[in-house]
């Protein structure tokens, strides 16, 4: 069957419309991100590896080299099976340091822009034949189906469509931080289409050409040489070489690197791809032998590369059209993704070094515009190469030339992952040597065959004379020269300090905390610095983004956090401008003071993180030590006391959980911050205590969160043992550990206890009070009764005065009782008050209770003596002591109260003539719940509270008692 060009054109256009629509609706958010980020989509998107070379060329390669065609996929399988060892570390680096291409990775590791230029140019040269191959595959398949020469315009339209798609869906964002979901979905769709097409053609071959599996088996029995032709070249050909080339290409080809790492959204997806992607390749290749044998059986007059189309020419129309669309899918996916990857490399390593950004330009728009122009230029360059190519060259040959090209990056990549001593000179020398050998052994013959090079270069003869297999020969010699130069120069020349640093960053089992302190002191200064190079808008955006990434506040001032901010900005800029340009911008504008000491908190955090990551690798004593370290650390963190450790410069190193709860300041906000910069009141409390000479402060009252709180504080010096014990320098460099004990709950409990005691006293006072109130009430009642019959105004006036006098007396009693019994707040409420008034109030309350005993109370207090203290609490002291004195007295005894003004101190003595306190009880009377009174009469809380209140007022209490003679309680209180 011969197809009309219009039909094919229409089918291709319809397919591309579907592709554009899918990408568009995905990017518009109409397809859930969860679906797009499903591992199946990721695996299918990696199917970009299978280009038209795989789609069409595998059959041709199988016809010529048997099962050698499988090596192109077996090598990939090996690389993916080893994903945790090889691909994961690369993924970690690309994500951590925002590296978007292989060139970025090498530039980051070897800190050389020249390396980036070389890698980019070589990638470009290696990829152009491959892009040309895709264009050729499409045009030749049109020729196969239409049996007419393909117009050049068709190739150009194909290229223009790809340019449009790549620009619309592959270059939407300037930063690789934003993933291209539309692109990923479209590439996955393309893989699904080519898989479906190739499986259906395979089924057609078995069922229609051979009449089923049995027919195929019969045909194979009749043609035993068909199977032998598959196996024989594999046994004799460059099986190992091709597996190695495919192994390298599976992650080093620009398109593979792009889809595997740049568009990767989760490390777990890579785990799924470790077996899922090789399975996809297996399915794509399962149909190749049946298609080859169908072609051998039908003998269509065409290049075996196109048997996939040739055997279905007589099938229903939809099948050859689907097969053709599968080919278009393979070619377009490869061109689009390769171009995107190459454009990013060209931008970062060719354009930006030649034309660095200026503050006046809109950086993001400029980057997008340049990237889009580069996309167009690269595809058009591929088109140009396609026109120059000699068309007899097999598809597989062009693909393998690219494979050998990317294999030249293997030594350099091994250096990135495993060899810390590798350096930029070795890398550049090795790559240059390898590229030269690749050019002489593979590209020059290709160009010569295409008529581009007129004279074969002398070394090309090596290939002819030295080996019967060009691939093994070219691979061996190019990699040998490459590796020898790489190793030799790396050993000969010394690494720069920057290279040593990045070499450590590339090795997951080594670790170095961020050193130095940023000269800028705030994110605002970061913006100023960056604006000088990338412009105000980009500076603000990048700083804001980095602050958001690290969850830092816009007013962050901690040096360690600013150092992290600088690191993060460099990483983010690396995704935008490439690692070398980002490094340059950051070094120029955000200088480091490398002499400044790295904050201990910062070092500790990095050590913790590092140990956390490598814990599973620890064994024996190391593991035991780590367990011990974690145990000690956990003790600190879980201690029910607030723990705050600070460096010599008063920066917080440890801020434990209890302190977080106590202060409401999270650990991540406190660590690394100077004590002075902590939120109020913790800055004053801790910084003040750190400065103070006392090592212990008890019962310190602090106003926090709108309420009073009480703390005991303790501190100890943490010596810098590296400076030796006790010296002056060691003292200056020593840190502090401070413990905070929150007494607020205890204080509240004690206040409640005091209140309970007061209520108990009121209970004891109640009878006396009732009696005392009862007398005036009786008097008032009698006076009121007399007033009914009294007509003399003077007598009425006297009665009214008498009533008022009695009511004042009642009010006085009630007021005293009320003052005494009201619930006090926790803590002292100091105020100046007259001591004699408080004393007489207490005396009157106590006398009411003990009136029956006829105890005489004599009070001697200097008039106008003022005391500074909590009046209610001190009244409680007086009531408790006087009650005890009266309780101990016999009827008719005296209780004397003497107050002596001692200038700074007031001494208050309460003496009774009671039975006294036995010697064995004197030590116990201040203990809570100790009482000698009968059950129901004493709580045992009175004297302990007295002791506590006096102590709170900074006073002291003494007890002097002689059994049978009496007791004297002496209280010393500071006046102020």
């Amino acid at each position: 069957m011969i197809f009309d060009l219009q039909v094919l054109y229409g089918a291709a256009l319809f397919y591309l419309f579907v592709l554009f629509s899918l990408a568009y609706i995905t990017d518009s958010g109409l397809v859930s991100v969860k679906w797009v980020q499903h591992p199946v989509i990721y695996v299918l998107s990696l199917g970009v590896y299978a280009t038209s070379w795989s789609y069409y060329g595998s059959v041709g390669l199988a016809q010529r080299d048997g099962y050698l065609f499988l090596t192109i996929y077996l090598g990939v399988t090996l690389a993916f099976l080893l994903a945790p060892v090889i691909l994961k570390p690369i993924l970690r680096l690309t994500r951590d340091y925002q590296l978007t291409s292989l060139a970025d990775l090498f530039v980051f590791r070897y800190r050389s822009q020249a390396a980036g230029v070389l890698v980019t140019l070589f990638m470009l040269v290696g990829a152009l034949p491959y892009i040309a191959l895709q264009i050729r595959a499409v045009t030749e398949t049109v020729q196969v189906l239409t049996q007419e020469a393909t117009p050049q315009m068709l190739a150009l339209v194909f290229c223009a469509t790809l340019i449009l798609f790549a620009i619309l869906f592959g270059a939407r964002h300037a930063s690789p931080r934003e993933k291209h979901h539309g692109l990923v979905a479209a590439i996955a769709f393309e893989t699904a289409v080519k898989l479906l097409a190739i499986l259906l053609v395979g089924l057609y071959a078995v069922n229609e050409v051979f009449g089923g599996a049995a027919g195929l088996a019969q045909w194979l029995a009749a043609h035993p040489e068909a199977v032998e032709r598959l196996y024989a070249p594999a046994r004799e050909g460059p099986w190992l070489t091709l597996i190695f080339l495919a192994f390298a290409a599976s992650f080093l080809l620009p398109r593979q690197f792009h889809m595997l790492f740049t568009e990767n959204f989760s490390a777990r997806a890579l785990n799924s791809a470790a077996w899922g992607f090789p399975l996809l390749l297996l399915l794509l290749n399962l149909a190749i032998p049946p298609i080859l044998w169908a072609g051998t059986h039908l003998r269509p007059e065409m290049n075996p590369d196109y048997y996939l189309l040739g055997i279905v020419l007589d099938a229903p129309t939809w099948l050859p059209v689907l097969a053709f669309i599968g080919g278009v899918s393979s070619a377009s996916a490869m061109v689009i993704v390769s171009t995107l990857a190459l454009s990013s490399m060209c931008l970062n390593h060719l354009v930006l070094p030649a034309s660095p950004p200026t503050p006046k330009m809109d950086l993001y728009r400029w980057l997008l515009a340049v990237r889009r122009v580069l996309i167009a230029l690269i595809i058009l360059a591929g088109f140009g190469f396609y026109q120059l190519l000699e068309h007899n060259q097999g598809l597989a040959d062009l693909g393998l030339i690219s494979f050998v090209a990317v294999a030249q990056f293997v030594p350099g990549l091994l250096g990135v992952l495993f060899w810390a001593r590798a350096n930029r000179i070795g890398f550049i020398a090795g790559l240059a040597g390898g590229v030269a050998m690749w050019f002489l052994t593979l590209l020059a013959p290709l160009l010569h065959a295409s008529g581009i090079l007129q004279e074969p270069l002398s070394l090309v003869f090596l290939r002819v004379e030295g080996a019967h297999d060009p691939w093994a020969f070219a691979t061996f010699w190019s990699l040998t020269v490459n590796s020898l130069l790489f190793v030799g120069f790396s050993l000969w020349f010394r690494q720069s300090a920057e290279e040593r640093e990045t070499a450590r960053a590339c090795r997951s089992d080594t670790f170095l905390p961020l050193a130095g302190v940023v000269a800028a002191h705030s994110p605002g200064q970061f913006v100023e610095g960056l604006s000088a190079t990338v412009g105000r808008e980009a500076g603000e955006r990048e700083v804001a983004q980095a602050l958001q990434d690290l969850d830092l506040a816009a007013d962050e001032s901690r040096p360690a956090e600013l150092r992290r901010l600088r690191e993060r900005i460099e990483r983010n800029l690396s995704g935008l401008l490439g690692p070398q340009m980002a490094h340059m911008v950051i070094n120029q504008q955000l200088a480091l003071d490398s002499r400044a000491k790295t904050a201990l908190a910062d070092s500790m955090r990095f050590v913790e993180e590092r140990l956390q990551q490598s814990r599973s690798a620890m064994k024996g004593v190391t593991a035991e030590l780590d367990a011990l370290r974690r145990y000690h650390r956990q003790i600190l963190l879980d201690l029910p006391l607030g723990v705050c450790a600070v460096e010599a410069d008063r920066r917080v190193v440890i801020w434990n959980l209890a302190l977080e709860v106590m202060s409401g300041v999270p650990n991540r906000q406190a660590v690394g911050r100077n004590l002075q910069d902590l939120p109020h009141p913790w800055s004053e409390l801790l910084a003040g205590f750190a400065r103070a000479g006392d090592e212990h402060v008890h019962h310190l009252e602090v106003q926090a969160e709108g309420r009073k709180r009480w703390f005991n504080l303790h501190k100890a010096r943490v010596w810098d043992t590296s400076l030796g014990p006790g010296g002056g320098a060691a003292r200056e460099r020593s840190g502090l550990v401070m413990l905070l004990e929150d007494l607020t709950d205890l204080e509240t409990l004690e206040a409640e206890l005091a209140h309970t005691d007061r209520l108990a006293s009121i209970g004891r006072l109640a009878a006396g009070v009732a009696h005392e109130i009862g007398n005036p009430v009786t008097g008032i009642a009698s006076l009121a009764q007399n007033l009914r019959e009294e007509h003399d105004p003077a007598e009425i006036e006297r009665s009214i005065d008498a009533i008022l006098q009695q009511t004042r007396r009642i009010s006085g009693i009630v007021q005293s009782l009320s003052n005494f019994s009201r619930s006090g707040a926790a803590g002292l409420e100091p105020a100046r008050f007259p001591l004699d008034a408080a004393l007489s109030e207490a005396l009157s309350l106590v006398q009411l209770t003990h009136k029956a005993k006829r105890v005489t109370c004599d009070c001697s207090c200097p008039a106008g003596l003022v005391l500074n203290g909590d009046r209610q609490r001190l009244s409680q002291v007086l009531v408790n002591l006087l009650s005890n004195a009266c309780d101990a007295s016999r009827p008719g005894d005296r209780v004397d109260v003497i107050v002596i003004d001692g200038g700074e101190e007031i001494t208050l003595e309460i003496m009774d003539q009671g039975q006294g306190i036995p010697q064995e009880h004197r030590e116990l009377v201040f203990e809570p719940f100790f009482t000698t009174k009968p059950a129901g009469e004493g709580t045992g809380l009175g004297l302990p509270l007295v002791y506590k209140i006096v102590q709170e007022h900074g006073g002291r209490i003494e007890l002097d008692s002689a059994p049978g003679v009496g007791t004297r309680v002496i209280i010393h209180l500071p006046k102020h």
Partner: protein
Amino acid sequence: MSSRQDSESYRELSLVLGLLFALLFLSPLADWWMSRLWVWYLPYLLWGGVLVLGALIHWRCGSSERDDR
């Protein structure tokens, strides 16, 4: 098993699987099975067998591995 242990196991089992793959496809054993000419789809069977093991390893360790983004 913790995700860290899973990660270590995954890494070790992947290496073992890589060695098995090398034994089947990169050693003289490959020459031996290729010269037997048993069935044309033998390479696919071996390839598929390795992938089944890969999938089992993934389900056992890799799927619960922490996504250390």
